[in-house]
């Protein structure tokens, strides 16, 4: 059911809900799912459009090369503050083209994820206790433990749908079930080569759990192996996006009012309660208010922070829920980087080239061996996770990699020969490293005093600086990965570990913790200041672990939703 605010007023008399959720991505979807299943009336606000499965085509131009599912950067943007020649310089993203939007459609960026899912390790919850202080890094332990989140990781496996094949490993967190609910998605023969090469090097290759159904479930089809998964929406329903796995069944309860095209400008509050959200219809530009008993912010870390800053009032002049002064601080990304090598037709070993270039199948291999490092020379330190995959199969972007030689553009017949050779006689194998982006004083969100979006609201300014330790860890692991590719017979191997953040892997800014003076949220992701305000997205994370965040975001949002259900039950009783 998608209705307008006017219709809601016709139906209910007033646009008042048990819960109003801002943002329909992974966390917003998990909260909406839980609350509507429990019988509560929920409004789910989403700035973007609702796309149907049929609209998720594999159109590289639209999905990967233009701002179609994200705002036009001249209308809505951020400013990114980086250190240039010793001075902090803020550049609007409409100048740099470096968009920090991630899928502004119903279901958010979960529509576009690759779905490589890993749980955090128990020690990720107690990094400070485990490894002590690191100079220049604001590391703290989480107020909750892995054991408290474990049931929700399991819940995600069932409800969102995670396929995989559990292989015991010293750094795999304990599970409460023996294996994943679905077997892995079908795999390319390159997995044999990866496993053989890793074994020869004494490295354990694990099967990557994926939020992709290998067989149909609950009205969703199993994967159809379209060859274009990450960065694209899923037309079969197999990918565990918030839209497919959570919003669709939430709508079926009749308790969810999904409101796409709704931009939330600010929240109104008294000292004790958020009373309403001011929303703008992005199509008509009409402004309205929506009221709820509880408000849940899940707009993605940096945007949730921005909304709270933009909601400052006389009670909270420095931003809503910001009596601690911690709002916006300790923004984190995923540290690490990536490397690639080429598997050439004429030198491929152990597998057939025709098998290697078979399209659509997954690689599904990851390495946890360096999640914690105890090096004879460098000592003990927190490491990271490695994912092995093919280079993204996008045709235009792969072709464009052949346009330079020795610093000069290549064109004419030579260009054709290079592209055809590259696309038909080799396949690039890639590793991606995920390690902690250590929280630090020079990575935070604030409001830019000089820039406003097209709705007249100040834009978020992101100061970004990585901690040197992040690069050290990334480079350490990359050298190990290079050996794997070499063992596989890959040529022209390179890697790039950089302090440039992946803008789709963002967390922090609304830290949770038990001390109201040092954190924005309590252990239930509820504002320390305002009891009916929750923040459910990744902004709660004080440290990010060394895996992609999505599984943890889903799991924590289910946990937060259970806390909200308890409050609503108490209220109604």
């Amino acid at each position: 059911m998608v209705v307008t605010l006017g219709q809601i007023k016709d139906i209910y008399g007033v646009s008042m809900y048990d819960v109003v959720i801002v943002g329909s991505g992974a966390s917003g979807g998990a909260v909406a799912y839980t609350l509507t299943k429990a019988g509560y009336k929920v409004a789910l606000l989403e700035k973007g459009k609702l796309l149907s499965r049929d609209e998720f085509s594999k159109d590289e131009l639209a999905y990967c090369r233009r701002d179609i599912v994200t705002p036009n950067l001249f209308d809505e943007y951020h400013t990114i503050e980086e250190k240039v020649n010793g001075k902090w310089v803020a550049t609007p993203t409409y100048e740099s083209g470096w968009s920090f939007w991630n899928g502004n459609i119903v279901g958010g960026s979960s529509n576009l994820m690759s779905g490589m899912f890993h749980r955090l390790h128990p020690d990720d919850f107690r990094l400070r206790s485990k490894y002590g202080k690191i100079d220049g890094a604001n590391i703290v332990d989480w107020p909750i433990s892995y054991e408290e989140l474990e049931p929700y990781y399991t819940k995600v496996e069932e409800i969102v749908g995670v396929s995989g094949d559990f292989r015991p490993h010293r750094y795999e967190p304990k599970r409460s079930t023996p294996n994943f609910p679905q077997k892995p998605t079908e795999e390319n023969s390159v997995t044999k080569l990866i496993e053989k090469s890793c074994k020869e090097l004494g490295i354990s290759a694990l099967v990557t759990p994926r939020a992709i159904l290998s067989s149909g479930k609950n009205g969703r089809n199993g994967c159809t192996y379209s060859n274009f998964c990450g960065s694209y929406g899923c037309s079969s329903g197999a990918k565990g996006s918030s839209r497919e796995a959570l919003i669709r069944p939430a709508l079926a309860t009749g308790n969810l009012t999904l409101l796409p095209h709704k931009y939330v400008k600010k929240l109104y509050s008294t000292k004790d309660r958020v009373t309403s959200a001011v929303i703008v219809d992005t199509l008509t530009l009409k402004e309205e208010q929506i009221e709820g008993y509880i408000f849940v912010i899940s707009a993605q870390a940096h945007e949730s922070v921005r909304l709270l800053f933009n909601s400052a009032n006389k009670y909270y002049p420095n931003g809503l829920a910001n009596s601690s002064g911690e709002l916006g601080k300790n923004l984190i990304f995923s540290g690490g980087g990536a490397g690639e090598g080429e598997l050439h037709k004429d030198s491929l070993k152990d597998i057939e080239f025709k098998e290697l270039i078979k399209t659509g199948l997954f690689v599904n291999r990851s390495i946890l061996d360096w999640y914690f490092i105890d090096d004879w020379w460098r000592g003990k330190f927190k490491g990271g996770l490695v994912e092995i995959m093919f280079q993204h199969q996008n045709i235009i972007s792969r072709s464009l990699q052949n346009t330079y030689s020795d610093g000069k553009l290549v064109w004419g017949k030579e260009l054709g020969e290079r592209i055809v050779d590259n696309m038909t006689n080799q396949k690039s194998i890639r590793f991606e490293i995920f390690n902690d982006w250590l929280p630090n004083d020079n990575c935070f969100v604030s409001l830019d005093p000089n820039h406003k979006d097209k709705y007249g609201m100040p834009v978020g300014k992101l100061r970004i600086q990585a901690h040197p330790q992040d690069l050290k860890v990334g480079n350490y692991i990359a050298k190990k990965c290079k050996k794997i590719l070499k063992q596989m017979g890959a040529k022209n191997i390179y890697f790039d570990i950089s302090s440039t953040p992946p803008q789709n892997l963002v967390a922090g800014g609304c830290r949770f913790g038990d001390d109201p003076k040092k954190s924005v949220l309590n252990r239930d992701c509820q504002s320390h200041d305002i009891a009916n305000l929750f923040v459910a997205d990744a902004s709660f994370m004080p440290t990010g672990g060394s895996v992609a965040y999505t599984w943890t975001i889903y799991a924590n949002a289910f946990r937060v939703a259970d806390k909200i259900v308890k409050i609503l039950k108490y209220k109604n009783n």
Partner: protein
Amino acid sequence: MLKRRSFLIFTSILGLSSYLNAGKKSKFDMEFKKVKLTIASVQEHMFPKGGLLPYAKDIKATQFLYETINHKSYDRDIKQFIIDGANEFICREGSGFVSMTESEKEKALRSYEESKRGEMWLNWIMTLTMEAMFSDPIYGSNIKEIGWSAIDSYGGYPRANKRYIWG
């Protein structure tokens, strides 16, 4: 990060930028008409007949370029830069580029590439032409998947049924 907008707008050495008028369609059409043949000629030199990739003219690469940069999703600064760069190139070479021999064209383009701005413009022309060749056939240039066939690499399913998802 490179301040793209500043670079594109304010570094035009000939002062040809009509940035303020970039949003006006009729103005753009007039501007494009003046440079269309030159752009087409550059595309055809970069993607010639007889190569392993389709000939730019056969895939209507210039029409794709026009429609693409004129679409609302396209960066307005780059759109203007395409026009400005072409005008600059025409000023450098005179209007005779289209009738030059292939070796003369090669020399002229390599000379333009020597400047940062020239290299950037040529890169955009090449990028747009390769987008024409390898994008979904619905955009009108990868006719009968001729571009994908040339490199034996095909897009996934479902294919697009509207340009830019919703037209």
